[in-house]
């Protein structure tokens, strides 16, 4: 079924993406019969399988469906790993199943973090485990973040238990202009990265604007050392990538190049671009660069100045993945404001709350609350259930997994959090978290929380973290 879902997803992507002629033909052809640039299909496949769950219903809770809908005194029914029914108090549920009383509690889809480095910058933060930036060249489109993911990072478990995070995208760091491929994971402990890999999720490409690439390479006396250098190296790389992509699409012989394969997939709309970029003026340059080379940025990440160009972002259909209130730690973050998220939201552009941080990922709901409060104080009335889209369907769409998760719709993965109060309150915590219908965290059951290999047998292991 996983493979079937992946094929479905690829078909959907191909149908929806504005791919150049030939791209579809290339993918439709039997892969191994092409020229020497032929790529193996899915060489590091997901081995994730949903853990067993029991049919479960929650009654009487306030439900945010993740797409902006709200049901008071709602009922949700989960079975066979899916959402099988959702509605008001009269929603029929079978007898003889586990029913939880949700009175005074809230149900949401699991939180999705579009920007995490868990596993590739794990705890403990020691050099031996620091695998997030291949900071040896400004263009490393050939690296895949999944090959750095250490599944024993205790941060995954904290994100589950404290943050209700059920899916997350692990990106390479931002030292490089082209940082490499991202990977999307289900937040389920596993022995291998493949055991966490989200079945059928498209890959992303991490790119970075601004200070990081120019500082890292400028300090080594190399290009780029300026923002114009950043753009020049980007453009030269895209010229090569388009050439590679054209040859590949035409079935011509060329030596396989991992970086070019990733970039060619971007140009064919199969890999989604996640672009670290702070300043408004730089985002505008990147938008034009996308038009110059025929690709689209899916989301600007960090984007502390997105509020200055919210109209531009809306008109170009680009999401902004933002912090609640982080600002000022470097020059390009100087103009960060707490109203960034509500202002971008009000302009009608896609808005996402992200963490980029092993602590922030444990409280993305609170980051959203900061934005919600700041927005309301300046007269931007956003309903709680609408704000939850920042943590649910919006990141799911920007990660290409919205057909599978990101909202509580019948048939979708039962990635669900039962919160012990309004999740925008600081006093609220996840009470239970289900992933694909399996109960993987229960605040009332001290045994139902993950202890990574790294923490097992250490002081404090099994402690409520």
């Amino acid at each position, binding site marked *: 079924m996983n493979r079937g879902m992946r094929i479905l997803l690829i078909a959907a992507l191909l149908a929806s993406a504005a791919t150049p002629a030939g791209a579809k033909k290339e993918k439709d052809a039997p892969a191994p019969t092409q020229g020497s640039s032929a790529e193996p299909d899915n060489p590091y496949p997901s081995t994730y399988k949903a853990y067993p769950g029991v049919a479960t219903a929650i009654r009487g809770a306030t439900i945010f469906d993740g797409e902006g809908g709200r049901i008071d005194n709602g009922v949700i029914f989960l079975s066979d790993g899916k959402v099988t029914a959702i509605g008001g108090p009269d929603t029929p549920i079978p007898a003889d199943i586990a029913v939880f009383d949700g009175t005074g509690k809230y149900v949401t889809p699991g939180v999705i973090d579009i920007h995490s480095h868990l596993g590739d910058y794990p*705890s*403990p*933060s*020691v050099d031996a485990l620091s695998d997030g930036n291949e900071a040896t060249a400004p263009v490393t489109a050939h690296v895949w973040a999944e090959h750095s993911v250490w599944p024993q990072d*205790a*941060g995954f478990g*904290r994100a589950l238990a*404290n943050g209700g995070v059920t899916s997350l995208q692990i990106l390479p760091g931002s030292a490089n202009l082209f940082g490499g491929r991202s990977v999307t994971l289900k937040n389920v402990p596993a022995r291998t990265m493949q055991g966490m890999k989200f079945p059928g999720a498209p890959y992303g490409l991490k790119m970075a604007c601004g*200070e990081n690439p120019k500082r890292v390479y400028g300090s080594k006396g190399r290009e780029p050392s300026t923002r114009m250098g950043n753009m020049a190296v980007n453009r030269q790389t895209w010229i090569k990538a388009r050439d590679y992509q054209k040859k590949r699409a035409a079935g011509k012989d060329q030596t396989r190049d991992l970086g070019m394969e990733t970039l060619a997939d971007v140009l064919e709309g199969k890999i989604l671009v996640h672009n670290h970029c702070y300043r408004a003026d730089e985002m505008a340059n990147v938008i034009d660069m996308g038009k110059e080379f025929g690709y689209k940025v899916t989301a600007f990440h960090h984007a502390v100045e997105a*509020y*200055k*160009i*919210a*109209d*531009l972002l809306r008109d170009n259909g680009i999401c902004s993945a933002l912090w*609640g*209130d*982080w*600002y*000022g*730690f*470097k*020059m390009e973050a*100087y*103009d*960060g*404001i*707490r*109203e960034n998220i509500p*202002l971008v939201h009000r*302009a009608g552009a896609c808005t996402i709350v992200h963490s980029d941080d*092993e*602590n922030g990922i*444990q*409280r993305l709901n*609170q*980051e959203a*609350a*900061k934005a919600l*409060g700041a927005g309301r*104080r*300046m*007269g931007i009335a956003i309903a709680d259930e609408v704000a939850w889209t920042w943590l649910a369907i919006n990141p799911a769409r920007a990660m290409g997994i919205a057909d599978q998760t990101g909202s509580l719709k019948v048939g979708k993965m039962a990635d669900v959090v039962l919160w*012990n109060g309004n999740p*925008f309150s*600081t*006093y*609220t*915590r996840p009470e239970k978290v289900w992933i694909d219908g399996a109960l993987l965290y229960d*605040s*009332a*059951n001290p045994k139902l929380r993950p202890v990574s290999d*790294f*923490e097992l047998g*250490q*002081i*404090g292991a099994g*402690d*409520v*973290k």
Partner: protein
Amino acid sequence: MSYKNHPLPPFALSLSKGRSFFRKKGKASTGSARTVLGALFFVLSTPAFTQSLAITGATLAIGDGSEPIRNGTVLISAGKVTAAGAGIAVPPGTKTIDAGGKWVTPGLVSGYSRVGLVEVPAVNETNDASARSPFSAAIDVAPAINPLANPIAISRTAGITRAVVVPSTGTGIFAGQGAVVDLGADMNAITRARAFQYVELGEEGAKDAGGSRPAAILTFKTMLREAQAFAKAPASYDGRSKDALLNRVDAEALVPVVTGAMPLMVHVESARDIVTVLSLRQDFPALKIIIAGAAEGWMVAPQIAAAKVPVIAGGLDDLPSSFEKLAATQSNVGRMVKAGVAVSMGLMDRDEGLQLRLATQQAGNMVALNKVQGATGLSWGQALRTISSAPAEAMGLGDRIGSLKVGRAGDVVLWDGDPLEMTSAPIAVWIDGVPQPIDNRQTKLRDRYATPSEGALPKAYEW
């Protein structure tokens, strides 16, 4: 020691912007909020420092660990709290603000920060937190505190009125002398200069000492003995000989540490290192120790409590982010408080110069833990205490700042909701009884870009 006595300085005329902000808000508000804001406007427009002020009808938190009081009143006169509680009579003629049930707290105190030392951390020219210098212990942050740094205004607007400012090490294990500051809109930021000495004795200390903890401990003890030698015979102390670790200036700076006249803030995280630090009093009995960090403090909480050593912790530190934090847990603060340790919270590890406003988030999350089985949290009042009176007391300033008890500074915040909720924010802030501007660089950017597209003129003309 300059406890300031300021009229509003000329540059605080930015208050006029604050008023216009209030008016704007007032229009959008309804009912009691308008009453509150209208009254505030009156107060702000007549900012005579000596004026008395009463805030009535408040959900009032004193900051001493007690739970909030309904329908409370706080009275401020001559810049100090003269009464706070329920059933307080307001003297006739006192300017009065009806809080209409809204929350009032003491101004919050950050137990660990670098505010005023840093504008943009990654821009070296604006970062005065550390130096590669011939000096260490003698470094005094007080003259470098910039009251006009934007993070001061941003933090003040979020209800932080005082902060412990901590230098970081540049050369060796001692970072120098930290300060306690106020975040008022004036040029007199110092509440107490040279409030403590700072030393690293955990992983960072080992690194600073050349690579090991034994080297750090030996360096520490040797330096303190050199300070003792200096104290005995200042004229004959030769800080230039090959064997001397301290130059004369640094030796002199450590004298009050050895005598206990100046607190020593020690940064350690692991249970092992905490025990080692507590044992330093065997060699130096007068040491007045404050522990910063203590991620594993819960494991040795009874020992810390018995030693009567206050702890300033980073409250939400729950990851084994280093080998000295393998037992880190969010229950750390709750468990230490339960064991009788005086615990404050501050910003450790990151954003210390900028994000003091995270204090309310740290405290709120301590309250949330009470609903998680197996976790230990704090009551609401205890949580507020960790970001108000507890850090003040750790600094020996509990009789002057950090709570709304009689005689404390008139540092007061009126909030639009529960202060520990992330959706809440201050409506008004007073420091030493002086109303503070409620705008900052960020609110001006917000207002400029309330609509992103240009109007009749470029955005640069909207100010």
